[in-house]
């Protein structure tokens, strides 16, 4: 019976070979080709010139991930302490924006952050801008918020915050309450309980949250183009530009994708290994 059933997987194994493995193999081949199809390492050499883009992408993605964690962790924690009905509504409220397309929500930020946008209009109305001008002696008509790195990070945090909250929440809410009671009985105050019990036990959620925020942040191109105005190029932009944008060079694009993929996978492996170590330490 069992062996017969395992045949069910054959079509999917073939499918995976064609549509999961083969594309990556082709990408690797492309990365080592020049425009004429000959072997070259030139694409990787050229990439040296884009070191800054790598640094900027990882920097912004890390900042966004940290902010998501700092905001998302307490929110998940507090949510888990509310009544069940409150939790249900809160979960729906956090999921709901995810079901709207993220481009729509990012576009909305464009209208808010624009130099003549809603936020600047608001600041003008309440006199914040003239107050600032008086205080600093500057002559600003608006606060420039659009097309900055800050705006890009804001876009990432806004779009990916639910990806941080959901996994952390789902781990915390399943924590065994008797563990906390036991800790208190043994004399731990609430800070110690949090540090020694809740935090280590919620670590798997934190790790999967970090992955779910970091990977899309580091590879995004829509957010940086919409909120960064093309002045803050990220890895995603650089890759997109080689395939469908203004500087056609799929070989270079494949090479950059490959390097990005490897860096991300290595980061994830290291982090998960580190996480596992922590878990084991806790168990001991």
């Amino acid at each position, binding site marked *: 019976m069992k062996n017969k*059933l395992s045949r069910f997987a054959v079509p999917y194994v073939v499918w995976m070979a*064609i549509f999961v493995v*083969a594309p990556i193999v082709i990408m690797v081949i492309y990365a080592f080709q020049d425009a004429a199809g000959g072997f070259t390492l030139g694409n990787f050499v050229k990439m040296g010139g884009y070191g800054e883009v790598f640094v900027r992408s990882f920097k912004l993605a890390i900042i966004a991930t940290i902010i998501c964690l700092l905001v998302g962790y307490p929110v998940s924690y507090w949510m888990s302490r509310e009544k069940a009905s409150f939790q249900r509504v809160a979960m729906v409220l956090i999921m709901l924006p995810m079901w709207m397309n993220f481009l729509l929500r990012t576009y909305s930020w464009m209208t808010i952050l624009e130099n003549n946008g809603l936020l600047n209009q608001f600041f003008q109305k309440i006199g914040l801008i003239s107050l600032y001008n008086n205080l600093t002696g500057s002559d600003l008509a608006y606060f420039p918020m659009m097309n900055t790195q800050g705006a890009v990070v804001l876009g990432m945090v806004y779009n990916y915050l639910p990806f941080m909250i959901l996994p952390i929440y789902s781990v915390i809410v399943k924590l065994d309450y008797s563990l906390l009671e036991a800790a208190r009985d043994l004399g731990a105050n609430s800070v110690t309980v949090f540090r020694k019990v809740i935090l280590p036990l919620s670590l798997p959620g934190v790790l999967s949250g970090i992955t779910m925020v970091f990977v899309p942040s580091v590879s995004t191109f829509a957010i940086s183009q919409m909120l960064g105005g093309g*002045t803050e190029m990220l890895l995603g932009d650089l890759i997109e530009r080689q395939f*469908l944008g203004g500087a056609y060079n799929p070989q270079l694009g494949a090479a950059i994708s490959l390097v990005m993929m490897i860096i991300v996978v290595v980061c994830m492996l290291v982090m998960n290994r580190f996480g596992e170590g922590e878990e084991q330490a806790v168990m001991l």
Partner: protein
Amino acid sequence: MKRQQPNGFFNRFLMALVALFLYAPIFILIIFSFNAGTSSSVWKGFSLHWYGQLFHNQIIMRSVYITLLVSLLATVIATIAGTFAAIGFYAMRRRRRDALMAVNNIPMMNADIVTGVSLALLFVVFFNGWSSFAGWVNSWQSAVVLPEKLSMGFGTLLIAHVMFNIPYVILSVGPKLRQMDRNLVDAAQDLGCTWMQAFWKVIIPEIKPGIVSGALTAFTMSIDDFIISYFTAGSSTSTLAMTIYGMTKKRVSPEINAISTLLFVTVLLLLAIVNIREASMERQGERRRTAAAVPGFTRTSDGKMPVWMRVVAGAVGCGLLAVLIISGRSANARPVVNVCSWGEYIDEELITEFEETTGIHVNYQTAESNEALYSLIAMGGADFDVIVPSDYMIARLIEEDRLAELDYDNIPNFQLIGEQFTHLSYDPENKYTVPYTWGSLGIIYNETMVDEPITSWDAMFDPKYAGQVLMINNSRDALAAALLDLGYDINTTDEAQLTEAFQLLKDAKDNGVYQAFVMDQVFQKMEGGNAAIAMYYAGDYLTMLENNEDLRYVVPEEGSNWFVDAMCVLKTSQHKREAEAWINFIASTESNLANMDYIWYASPNAEALEQYPDYYLELYEEELDEELYNIMALPDEERERCTLYINLPPETLALYNDLWNRLGV
């Protein structure tokens, strides 16, 4: 976690702040969907105008249809395939299963852009292989004619969606299988079930919850996906996310707000229904548990929907089906022509008129820039028939043998084109092109935001205007501005000169001169007074002037570029006859007059160019300002200050690409 002390006021306040952060942008979108004006940040009064417009917007409705269709199909296929695969994996030996699961997890772990790009490369490689295979098959036999040209489209989009959906189905079905009692199947067979019956009557019911939740996840992922679709859908298929992305690169119309509102309300309703149902089920379950208090017995009787829930679910299903049918109506098999042009570059009534007179359906798409158009064509993602590139790009396409020679017998209106616009350097024998418009590149500035009139390209690099300048987002025009400012030829191939021009741009960028790099977003930014200076095209300046009277245009004293955009047909076109019909229609004097009036770009049609001031007088009952006419149709002595781009040798093009990439750094 239960039985904790409740949150204090402060904590709840912070949670409310996070909720506000998540919802403020959505509410702003919704509020402005009822705005009477076109602006997305200035309130002009209440109106439902944009909702009406939305249902007439074929592009949006069609992309809604594509999105729903691809998501539904991909969900169904992925759910079935994923369930079978999960069962197969379950029956395997552990080591083999773990190895296969690792492969299965790749699409989930990888960044979307890597998945999208690698799939696109696979399709490109396959299409290239296919076309040589088909060519070879067709060459030695004629019984079966294989299509030689394949391109990305709905099929590839569907494959991509199925590909990234299956892992989610496997992930939610797998655990249910492992929870299942392994002896159940044996027991069923012992009791006389055939192998098939055991499968359908035992395994499937046992793992049903996993299948359902897998299908839901898959559907959600499909609906929300943008990046993978963007790389695999090709040019003629566009999901809603892709349409929105395209729109944010142009003038954004409040129809976007209207569609977001409708989406939001739909999702809100669905979630509310699901949650009320779950809550009531939970309550019932609790009641039963306390009342009956027979452990293990409650399992059999839960999970029945109340009647009204089924009615609602049925209604939602029917509604979805109706939307599919209504919006799919336009997708029947009429003769088609796929046109790719630039944003805000045609009087859209011409499309309707052409469709009505000829019965040929026009699939009208836009590309962002010549370079982006080239990328689309070179990647094999485009199945365009007619494209409207500029002079230098036409030369490149001709050189690379990508254009088809036109049959000018089918395009009698070509005779009407002024002779100064035919047989130009990019197509000296005029075998491939029919000019569409011409004009100049210059600087647009807001009079109220600069101290003195702008006369020189210096303004584009002057730190004085830091944060106020919009640089054009394509390598050729941006480097041309720098080359002109330095006093070099815009067609130079000298690496030192180009590097110097690049350095000028780079320094200006590092000094914060550029607010953004834009193409068609320039309309909204300049009209809204969000930037002081931009470089763009004369015709588009005149469109902006209609919405903001403070704007001025200048062809700088160092000279500039003048360009011709011409219609040509791609060699891969499957609709050459329809394409030529379209070109002939657009080249007519009437079409040129309508277009000129609508997009403010000068026509190459000699009659139209001459008649336009009278046409304007008749239409608006006022004289056309001669100054405006001269900006649109540059007088000959002005035009002589400007140069046409010519195509550059491959090494220089590679240098352009490299410099352009590095500018972003």
